[in-house]
């Protein structure tokens, strides 16, 4: 379970950043503005929005990497600011840009994260064996990751995310840059996590993924939440013909509303 209440995040731009982005006036930028939502176990919560909408910032605050400027988040009942270690122990985090240590083998890498999650060696070994069998990592488990293909790396990334059997999993644009087969691996992982009654939050701007996976949907645009309901309700209330068109309609409507 993830509960996000009145979450806001302000970034302070440096002079250089302001110059580069052509941003004038106030150096404070509101990346996320008064966002609230709830993700439930056994359901996939999709955060949809264009690039720069504030999806990654929100997910990073859930993962305790960033601290909220205002508002609160609890993950599995723990506060992200004051009980960060407790939150992280129950959290899996996978993004399209997370990398792996090239100089380690999958075996060493998974051991490393297992230990960081305070698992004992026996549990690590058992869990690793399960995941490696499931993902087909055994045949290259002792080779250096540096020379792996994208697909092989993706499998190791999944094992890394799942080694401590997290109850909440954060996927931030997890399929970006992946080919169809590797992306399918991620989709399967998300579905399986749901079946295992885990809480899943997924951010994406790929409409087909939204359609395929969502149980609950939130649309975020320019830092504000412009829609939040079940995906069924969303589909029932659609005024435009396609998901894309409906998304654009909502985004435009929200802009007119704020003006």
């Amino acid at each position, binding site marked *: 379970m993830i509960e996000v209440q009145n979450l806001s995040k302000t*970034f*302070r731009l440096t002079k250089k950043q302001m110059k580069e982005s052509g941003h004038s006036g106030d150096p404070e930028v509101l990346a996320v503005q008064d966002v609230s939502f709830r993700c439930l176990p056994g359901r996939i919560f999709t955060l949809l929005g264009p690039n720069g909408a504030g999806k990654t910032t929100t997910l*990073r605050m859930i*993962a*305790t*990497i*960033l*601290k909220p400027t205002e508002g609160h988040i609890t993950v599995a009942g723990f506060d992200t600011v004051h009980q*960060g*270690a407790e939150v*992280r*122990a129950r*959290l899996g*985090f996978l*993004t399209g*840009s*997370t*990398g*792996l*240590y*090239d*100089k*380690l083998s999958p075996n*060493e890498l998974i051991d*490393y*994260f297992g*230990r*960081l*999650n*305070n698992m004992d060696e026996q549990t690590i070994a058992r869990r690793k064996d399960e995941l490696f069998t499931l993902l087909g990592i055994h045949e290259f488990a002792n080779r250096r990751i540096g020379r792996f293909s994208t697909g092989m790396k993706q499998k190791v990334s999944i094992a*890394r995310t799942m080694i401590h059997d997290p109850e909440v999993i954060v996927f931030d644009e997890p399929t970006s840059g992946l080919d169809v087969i590797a992306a399918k691996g991620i989709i399967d992982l998300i579905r399986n996590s749901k079946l295992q009654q885990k809480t899943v939050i997924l951010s994406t701007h790929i409409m087909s993924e939204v359609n395929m996976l969502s149980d609950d949907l939130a649309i975020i645009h320019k830092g504000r939440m412009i829609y939040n309901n079940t995906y069924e309700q969303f589909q029932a209330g659609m005024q435009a013909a396609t998901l894309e068109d409906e998304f654009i309609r909502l985004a435009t409507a929200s802009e007119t509303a704020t003006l």
Partner: protein
Amino acid sequence: MNNIITIFRKELKEILRDKRTLIIMLVLPLVVYPLLFTGVSSFMQGQAEKAGEETLRIGLGAGGDAALFREYLSAWPGKTDVRSISSDTAEAKVQIQADSLDVVFFFPDGFTASVDSLDPVSYTYYYTSTNKEFQVDMIRGISQGFQQSLTARKLAQLSVNERVLEPAQAEAHNIASNREQFGSIIGGIIPYFFIIFCLIGCMYPAMDIAAGEKERGTLETLLVSPASRLDIYLGKFMAVGLSGFISAMAAIAGILISSKMISAEAGAEASGIMEMMEGIIQPGSVLLLLGILLPLNAFFAAITLMLSIYARTYKEAQGMISPMMIVTVFPSVAGMLPGVTLNYVTALVPILNVSLGAKEIISGTAETGPLVVTYISLIAFALLALMASVRFFNQEKNIMRG
């Protein structure tokens, strides 16, 4: 604590698997430098030996009275090839320029008579100072020796004992021990190598461990693990610090190996160096040296890590950390200059105090007061750097800068 060790061990594993870092950290100081040093020293020795065998080609201008000089040369111990050339000085210059002669002497007519009657008289010689150094020395030696032979000849004619020129001989005793003498020279070189290699040893892993992780997207995965930011920082700090320490120790071992190799060749002359080395490798002075070097080590690790955390990419980190090398070289070289000593002021200048303190410990001349100030200031600098670095690591604007 477990997390710190887990992170430390993993970072160390990666450092040890990075060939480039290993070459710079270990192969360079342990293999390349000793070879370079001994190569240079055996080359210099070879040159000196060659000097003894070399034949000096001497031209004598025609027409003058060179009888005394010829007589002197015949008794001169070195090898010479004396040739008569024309009395034209221009011709002499051409021959020297063309390297067919090393030196040309011109004596006036009646030179012997003038010397004997104490009339003012002079002789001239042409040479080029761009010649090999030992040739220039030989030429000057010949002229000086010749002058002395003239003095002796005159004294003999006057029936004056030659000892009138030097009625008493001075016997000077330098009571500085070999350790002190060599310590002031080599004592400056050892801390220099330690400082530079300690920095290099910290630099490369630091760039990889922070900016490199950011660039490859692995830092995020580490930040979402239950390990606290402080655990992550300390694990990385220890790995960077140890790498700097190993690299510095390798540099010192490299110097020891070099000096052993050189002294094996040079024999007695280098025994002072060995005596000094043995003097340093006493538990007491090793402890004193480590007391200076470890805070410096921590200082370097903290600063390099701090800059690397700020950088977005490995390349950017390189750009920010490399200038540290230049900033570091100056004070460490200043410590090698003669006359710069450890006092209450220099003891407060970072790096310079390391260089001077280590030099004085090595030559056994360190004074307690300034040394204590050095320790205190070094530990203070190291702690400040560490605190600033930890603070830096905890700020999301630095760690997520990208």
